[in-house]
């Protein structure tokens, strides 16, 4: 994410503020402006279905970014991501149903739930590593779902807790377009938070811990402190995603947060490309859009109506196939492809960086 030098010549920094600037070259600024322009115009040209898809991608991006922070940078595996999203969603659901809490209350409350759960989820990380840690987070997933299920049954919300659309300053968020922008802003904010976290002290500490814990400790980094911090921040962001999810869908039920969801998030960061925020975004978009894309592609096949029953099984299976192909053929993930593509043009007309070995 952080490049030692800009991508075009002639950008020298005369103070550290410039060095920290996110956009350095003109091309980058133009690129961002174009992206923003596309993102802003998209809702006015897209069908509501595509809009919904985009909203799902944004929601997934928030979750994937926070998981990337935890796994891709701090190196802590978690299979409890769905549990955290559920926690945020249930906090929102329970608060709206029980005390009619408004948006501005449920959102921080969800984040707070995330913080608390992050501490709890994070505690095992002080003793455990890798797979064992993953399993302990899995256990917490089951606990959250169990509690959620109990609440649903006990309060008689057997088909889910219905949630009113939130209002922001008197404006009720019902329109898909409005949601698009709200979620876009949240996703962008998450991205910015992640970027800034990663280039701050904590980001460097996480990477040091990820690289080698013993060395990091020798460098005077508080291992347990930063691990917990990673869990707390990641969980808080994930819970916020859960809160938004609850509002966006207008309903919370435990079925929406099964283990498969956790696996989807892990798939996002691996398919996207470990250790890259861009990868998290790409992965989130890919994993979210992919099933719809496959479905759409399969429907292009001739005589598809005859296969009506089977087509979904094929769709399901092909998700597995594509994931396998991806893992085998592109271990660096989408971001690997992106970088290659980018390098193809960045290095144009060279294949490798010229003067790489040039010494005076």
């Amino acid at each position, binding site marked *: 994410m952080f490049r030692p030098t800009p991508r075009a010549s002639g950008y020298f920094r005369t103070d550290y503020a410039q060095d920290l600037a996110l956009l350095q070259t003109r091309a980058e600024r133009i690129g961002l402006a174009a992206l923003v322009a596309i993102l802003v115009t*998209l809702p006015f040209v897209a069908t509501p279905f595509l809009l919904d898809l985009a909203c799902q991608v944004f929601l997934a*991006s928030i979750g994937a970014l926070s998981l990337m922070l935890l796994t891709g940078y701090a190196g802590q595996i978690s299979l409890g991501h769905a549990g955290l999203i559920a926690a945020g969603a249930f906090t929102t659901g329970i608060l709206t149903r029980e005390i009619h809490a408004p948006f501005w209350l449920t959102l921080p409350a969800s984040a707070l739930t995330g913080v608390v759960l992050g501490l709890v989820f994070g505690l095992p990380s002080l003793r455990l590593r890798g797979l064992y840690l993953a399993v302990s987070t899995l256990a917490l997933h089951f606990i959250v779902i169990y509690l959620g299920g109990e609440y649903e049954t006990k309060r008689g919300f057997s088909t889910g807790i219905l949630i009113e659309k939130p209002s922001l300053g008197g404006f009720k968020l019902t329109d898909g377009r409005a949601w698009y922008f709200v979620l876009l802003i949240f996703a962008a904010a998450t991205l910015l938070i992640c970027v800034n976290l990663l280039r701050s002290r904590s980001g460097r500490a996480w990477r040091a811990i990820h690289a080698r814990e013993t060395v990091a400790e020798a460098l005077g980094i508080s291992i347990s402190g930063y691990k917990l911090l990673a869990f707390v921040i990641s969980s808080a962001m994930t819970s916020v995603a859960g809160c938004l999810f609850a509002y966006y869908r207008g309903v919370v039920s435990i079925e929406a947060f099964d283990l498969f969801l956790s696996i989807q998030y892990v798939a996002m960061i691996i398919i996207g490309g470990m250790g890259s925020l861009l990868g998290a975004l790409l992965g989130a978009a890919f994993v979210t859009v992919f099933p719809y*894309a496959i479905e759409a592609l399969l429907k292009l096949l001739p005589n598809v109506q005859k296969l009506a029953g089977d087509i979904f099984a094929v769709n399901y299976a092909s998700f597995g196939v594509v994931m396998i192909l991806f893992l085998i053929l592109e271990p660096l993930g989408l971001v690997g492809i992106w970088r290659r593509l980018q390098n193809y043009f960045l290095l144009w007309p060279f294949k490798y960086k010229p003067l790489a070995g040039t010494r005076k």
Partner: protein
Amino acid sequence: MLKRTLLGAIAICALTIPASAQDAYVVGLTGALTGPPSSTYAPAVDALGLYIDRVNAAGGVNGKKIQLILEDDGAQPSKAAANTKKLITQDKAVLILNASLSSTYAPVIAETQAAGVPLLFASSVCPKSVYPPAEPLQFCTTGFAANYDSQATLDFIKARAKGPVKIGFSAMAIPLSRGEIDYAENLSKEMGMTPVDKEVIPPPTADYTSFATKLKDAGPNWVYSWAPWVTQVRTLEALRKLGWQDDYVAWGHLEAESELSRLKDGKFFVVNSNALFQEALPIHKEIEEAAKKAGSKYPAATMAEGWIAGMAIEAALKGAGWPADPAKLKASMENLKVDTKGLRGGPIEWTKDNHFRTKLYYRVYTWSGDKISRVQDWKSYDVK
């Protein structure tokens, strides 16, 4: 970054928007066609497809064909919501069908309500919102309905039992099933029975014996289960293995017919709102032939629900005329009488404030020596 993928997706989707069928009724369905719960829903959807194919082959409704667009939600609420949105906005469906797990109801209802499109629950349990006073846009054709089912079952037990009833319950650990069993437990008390135990069994369970042991040790002489078929039948089997020989009542899902003949258990009763194919009515023959002709991989006996949904759709569209829009369709559905031709105990009648049916009919079957037999004929309940 994001934009590339998004644009790619847009391109793919743009390419694949089905040539909008201008001269057909578009009906969209979101259902659990894959994933663990699909065993209940896939056959019904298959049957619905068969029925609509038949209607189309016979010239359609009002001279127009019906185009049924299927979307799989894998029983995930989020996917169901997205599917619904797509069906309404992109495919311009005039009617949405839900054939999925109850957890998908809320998001689908939210989407259809926002768009003002009627929603028909075609394969899963009817939500309370279709009972009088019904939500304006929600309708239901399926045979099983919360509370009424338990009422009918407990009535049956009461009538059948010779002495005092010590009743045990079994539910699956999903909110819907738990809620219904809780209701039944209270009702049983009101009806003078003694509830002795209630087992709530998680869906993924390797061995039901543990639960059955507890149930059995509570000493019931009746056990009632209202849950997905797996839980109902495996609790029974586990109980039987443990040597419990008393009466067991369960809800008759799609699988009931084949399972009754597999289990051959004279003290296992299924309460049903559909007539079993065993009875070989003309309509049953019709369905069997259609299934055979289409080479369906599901037994005909599992197809009644889908067939009835098809009948309802046909009738609703006929009433709405051509061209149909959601409003016209809603008006048509609010005043509809569907002749089930014997598949049910009577017609499905919808009124302005009752989108369930005015009268419910239940039959009870069991295995008697060499065949499935009725132990109680249609018994009707007024829906209020």
